[in-house]
């Protein structure tokens, strides 16, 4: 059973036990426009909550993707690195960025559920 939560910076996290799969929301990809490059964190990197973890670049600009929680990077999406346009076609599916081992589940308390995120972007 996975739960999906959202940050105010437009990341999503699908939580399965103590592992979160992280990406950017469909709203975020619409704002960014055509994505041409993504830079993913190294596997094993220890991320602090709110630290710049990845980069997503459109034709026009580069944007940071922040770590939504503190933890260690377990896996990154090689398919996304090879095909950055997946962010535009399937932001909340195939275009996940990385998986992180959640160090402190209490950090999830500050995140939004889908209804709250919808209100945030309305």
């Amino acid at each position, binding site marked *: 059973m996975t739960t999906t939560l959202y940050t105010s910076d437009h990341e999503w996290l699908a939580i399965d036990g103590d592992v979160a799969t992280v990406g950017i929301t469909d709203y975020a990809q619409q704002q960014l*426009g*055509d994505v*041409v*490059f993504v*830079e993913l964190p190294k596997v094993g990197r220890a991320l602090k909550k709110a630290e710049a973890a990845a*980069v997503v*670049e*459109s*034709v*026009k*600009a*580069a944007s940071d993707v922040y770590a939504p929680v503190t933890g260690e990077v377990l896996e990154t999406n090689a398919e996304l690195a090879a095909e950055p346009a997946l962010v535009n076609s399937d932001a909340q599916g195939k275009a996940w960025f990385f998986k992180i081992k959640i160090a402190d589940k209490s950090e999830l308390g500050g995140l939004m559920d889908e209804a709250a995120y919808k209100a945030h972007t309305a």
Partner: protein
Amino acid sequence: MLANDQDSLKRTPLHGLHVSLGGKMVPFAGYDLPVQYPAGVLKEHLHTRASAGLFDVSHMGQLALRPKSGKVEDAARALERLVPQDIVAIAEGRQRYAQFTNADGGILDDLMVANFGDHLFLVVNAACKAEDEAHLRANLSDDCVIESLTDRALIALQGPRAEAVLAKLCAEAPSMTFMDAGPRKVAGIDCFVSRSGYTGEDGFEISVPAGDAERLAKMLLENTDVLPIGLGARDSLRLEAGLCLYGHDIDTATTPVEAALEWSVQKSRRSGGARAGGFPGAEKILAHFDNGASRRRVGLRAEGRAPVREGALLFANDAGGEPIGQVTSGGFGPSLNAPVAMGYVPVSLAALGTKLFAEVRGQRLPLVVAAMPFVKNTYKR
């Protein structure tokens, strides 16, 4: 952006059309302009290179320089006091690229100058237009009447299908060649048409009375070959074409020689020419022509996929050392499907093929000095 800042933004005569076409409006040079339409920057860029794109460039300044003597060569001679170009030699119905220079040899703005027979027609950058007009008034008022044509819009139609599209509304369009410019009727409207643009593609720029602008734009957009194109693709198109963006690739601290714009300064204005010098900063600019400048604007291609953007510092080596230059424009080139950039480097590192490094997010990414334009231009000579 605060609400009252948004309110203070100026609107072009095509503002309502942009909104109705779903344009994503952003502030640019004091105007509320579309950065992209629903098609998106990538598709808009590629469509312009494959078919035709329509751009609203009404934010740019349009000026008429009318000689008080009635002789256009007097206006041309007067303007030569402010630019290093040969303006006298511009034949009636022709246009030339120029720069206003300052006393230090830097560039105040770049512009287009056309000879319309009885006067000169100038197109200048939006961000500089008030200063340019004041500069012209301060220096040329004895010889010329300077008229700011604020009641006109400017529409660019660019791409391989531009000629066929415009021909339906302007039978003379196909007979124009690159940099021809002058009054033409387009759909019965009194316009100024030039065969030029800012994309590297064949195309036209059409100056149209503000009240007719939306009607004309809609007529052009009725053709299924034409898509509206926003500022995002305008920037990626001009970058691939190796064209300078004022305030980024050229400014008051760059001379035309450093900016690799020697081609735009005719021999008549260089040392030994018939009207050598006589423009602001001539001493420094002619010294750069005669002895070379120490740095130069070059094209840069990345080996990897990461775009290298404006402001990135350039280095000669992959670690250590002081920066040797800086990227002034950079991003992703959709037609090349690769990053492209331009920047200034010491002349000793400006040769094609020179390997350099750009610092991006703390890493040094390999670059190579590459020829511009990055994409072959398709001007109709």
